[in-house]
């Protein structure tokens, strides 16, 4: 078991190293950030001064070495745009993202799981078709469009909700719904397929043959087992919601990490993009690592096979 865990930790560290390398190179492919911080026609001298100030005049490998050395000490660098440590910016935005993600996740589970169960139980019927349409719309309608339509209807037309910003419960409703709908659709589809698989299994047939009430068969025996992959997916999705709700946070001017990432990309603020991606990637790697270890603990075949 110890060897298994060590190997998994090693894989995780390699993944993070590769992620750091890829994101470091990719952000630099997007162009020169200095060009966005000066006027067109600015003197080459001013441009060079700014490049020097940001350390962009140094060779790429030196920049990468500096980035990794800082990362090892928990320093994600200084934002070009805000001239503030990236970690400080990240933690300023984190509570907003956690709040939005928590509410959106709750909504997505409250909508996605019951509708997935209903679709599986009534497979081929009205509720199944309705669920499929719901999932199709949730996954295919772009978030920015859903967000704008909600703003126009509930803010501009009805005047019930604030169009953007944060601070009150009312501010939270539209962004949480917009973000939650997409994930609700994903959770609904997974719940449905997982439930269908479980409902077709031998032990469910046995339970039915024993004459157990259908509610008990579905609610206790089938649901519990079908829920495992949904919860695993929800865990990963929660990390995604926290870190990359870029479109929703931008449309609703919600001051979270997704918008920080958007600002980083917009201004080619390399330290911000690198920092957010590394932290987000780190979270996903950590969740996967914990899931792997958890699976290995409860199922010895997994650690033996690997």
């Amino acid at each position, binding site marked *: 078991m110890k060897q298994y865990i060590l190997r998994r930790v090693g894989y995780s560290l390699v993944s993070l190293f590769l992620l750091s390398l890829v994101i470091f190179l990719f952000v630099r492919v997007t162009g020169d950030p200095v060009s966005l911080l000066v*006027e067109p*026609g600015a*003197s080459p001298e001013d441009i060079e001064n700014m490049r020097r100030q940001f350390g962009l005049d140094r060779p790429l490998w030196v920049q990468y070495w500096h980035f990794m050395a800082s990362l090892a000490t928990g320093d994600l660098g200084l934002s070009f*745009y*805000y001239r503030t440590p990236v970690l400080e910016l990240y933690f*300023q935005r984190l509570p907003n993202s956690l709040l939005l993600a928590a509410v959106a996740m709750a909504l997505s589970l409250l909508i996605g799981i019951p509708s997935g169960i209903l679709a599986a139980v009534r497979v081929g019927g009205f509720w199944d078709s309705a669920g499929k349409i719901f999932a199709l719309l949730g996954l295919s309608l772009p978030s920015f469009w859903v967000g704008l339509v909600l703003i126009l209807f509930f803010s*501009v037309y009805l005047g019930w909700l604030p169009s953007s910003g944060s601070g009150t419960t009312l501010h939270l409703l539209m962004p949480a719904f917009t973000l939650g709908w997409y994930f609700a659709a994903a959770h609904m589809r997974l719940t449905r397929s997982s439930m269908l698989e479980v409902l077709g299994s031998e032990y469910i047939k046995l339970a039915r043959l024993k004459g157990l009430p259908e509610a008990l068969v579905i609610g206790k025996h089938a649901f519990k087992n079908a829920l495992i992959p949904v919860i695993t997916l929800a865990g990963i999705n929660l990390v995604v919601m926290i870190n990359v709700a870029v479109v929703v946070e931008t*449309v609703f*001017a919600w001051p979270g990490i997704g918008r920080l990432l958007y*600002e980083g990309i917009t201004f080619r603020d390399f330290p911000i993009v690198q920092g957010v991606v590394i932290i987000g990637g780190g979270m996903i790697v950590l969740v996967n690592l914990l899931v792997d270890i958890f699976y290995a603990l409860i199922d010895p075949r997994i650690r033996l096979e690997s």
Partner: protein
Amino acid sequence: MLSSQRDHDDPIVRGTTARATRRELLSAAALGVLALGAKPARAAPDGELRIGAHVSLAPTWFDPAETSGIITPFMMLYAMHDAMMKAMPGNPMAPCLAESWTMAPDGLSYAFTLRKGVRFHNGEVLTAEDVKFSLERYRGASSKTLKERVAGVDIHDPHRLTIRLNQPWPDFLTFYASATGAGWIVPKKYVQQVGEDGFKKAPIGAGPYKFVSFTPGVELVCEAFEGYWRKAPAIKRLVFKVVPDEATRLAALQRGELDIAYSIRGELADELVRTPGLTIKPAVGSAPFWLYFPEQWDPQSPWHDRRVRLATNLALDLKTINQALTLGYSRLTGSVFPENFEFYWQPPAPVYDPARARKLLAEAGHARGFDAGDYYCDTSYANIGEVVLNNLREVGIRVKLRPLERAAFFKAYSEKKLKNIVQGASGAFGNCATRAEAFVAKGGTYAYGSYPDIDALFAEQAVQMDRAKREVILHRLQQLVHDKTIFAPIWQLAFISGVGPRVGQSGFGLIKGFVYTAPYEELTLKGKA
């Protein structure tokens, strides 16, 4: 930009042209359907003005020493700080903290007399020490030029000082007052007390509004400074709210959550015009656009023939382009020099005459048109290029659009690597002489060649300390630029904003060439003036 996201974020650079993306069209369509039944919702509290910023506000903008050469930080500087002299309504260099100034006859020094009784927000009196400190502390755009040419600062008493130069420099005041942030004064004692980072977190200035709070990416709150020397602001509280999405900004303006929304473009600007109670406020900045013919000095090139360059000018249907892309609000000045710049000369209005363009091309030996190669532009402004290309094709000038990423474009432009046609632009500060230096005169960063008569005039004006004589020379220089058809000017770009029904004086357009609302002390709410 206009369609690219980054272009939302800088009005002059990225400002205002409007290429309707699918997203904008969808937004506008939805707005159109719903706006008729729109309910005006909660308005901001009395005495508070809410401004919807299109770009995230950066703390570096609160510090004049960090001015990077873009216009956006001046949105903040005009609120929290004050300058020795600055652009004000009707005067591009109005005396502010400096009550008066004189240049020494030899042009080697400028003596300033400071306004008495001016205080910073913390109550400290503004003195010559603060002026010297601010100049020496400045590290933003053009700081090297400034510091190389300034020999030192002599303080005579708390309200009188002299800035000495190493050599006569006719453009000193242009650099000191507008092209840099060096003339915007910060309190020496306070900066030394709280340090550089502390100053950015809690800036103190001598402007009409005091800093109250700043939440990165969310909002900046400022409060009226009753002791502002010019006058106490009429509006007690300013809130700059960051709303990055354009459609959301417009919705917030329609709902009354914002009183002013910056940068509403294209289809959304049309919607703004149609919404009762809202007012569209276009402001023309200092960013002219043009076509440049880098091969005009090559006798083998078709562009060497002035008739071909003139035909290009005549082929451009600028009025239609302006209407289509900026609702007709950009200025068709016919010049590559901003009309609000010192020493500006107004050329004749541009003419659209495709028939004459074809005739000129025929005379130049291109009766059936010609393949003119590539048309280079910054990708952000490729939408302008697309329309221009159609105009050129109609008279027989066939070019291919070659959009380049912005940094790559300006790098290639300055390294003289581009050919055929270049779609250029500049929003850099300065005056007509500094523009000529970069784009027209021999050795200019973006000049691929030059003409001896223009170079002679440029050299002559550079040492001419008499302003009137210098103006004559620079007018003549601009006239030659026009006569030789070095460029085909397009427009001076407009930045479009929206104003809500509560606002009395919005401040837009009061300062020529400034695209944001200012001066803030002039702003009023209806019934509160």
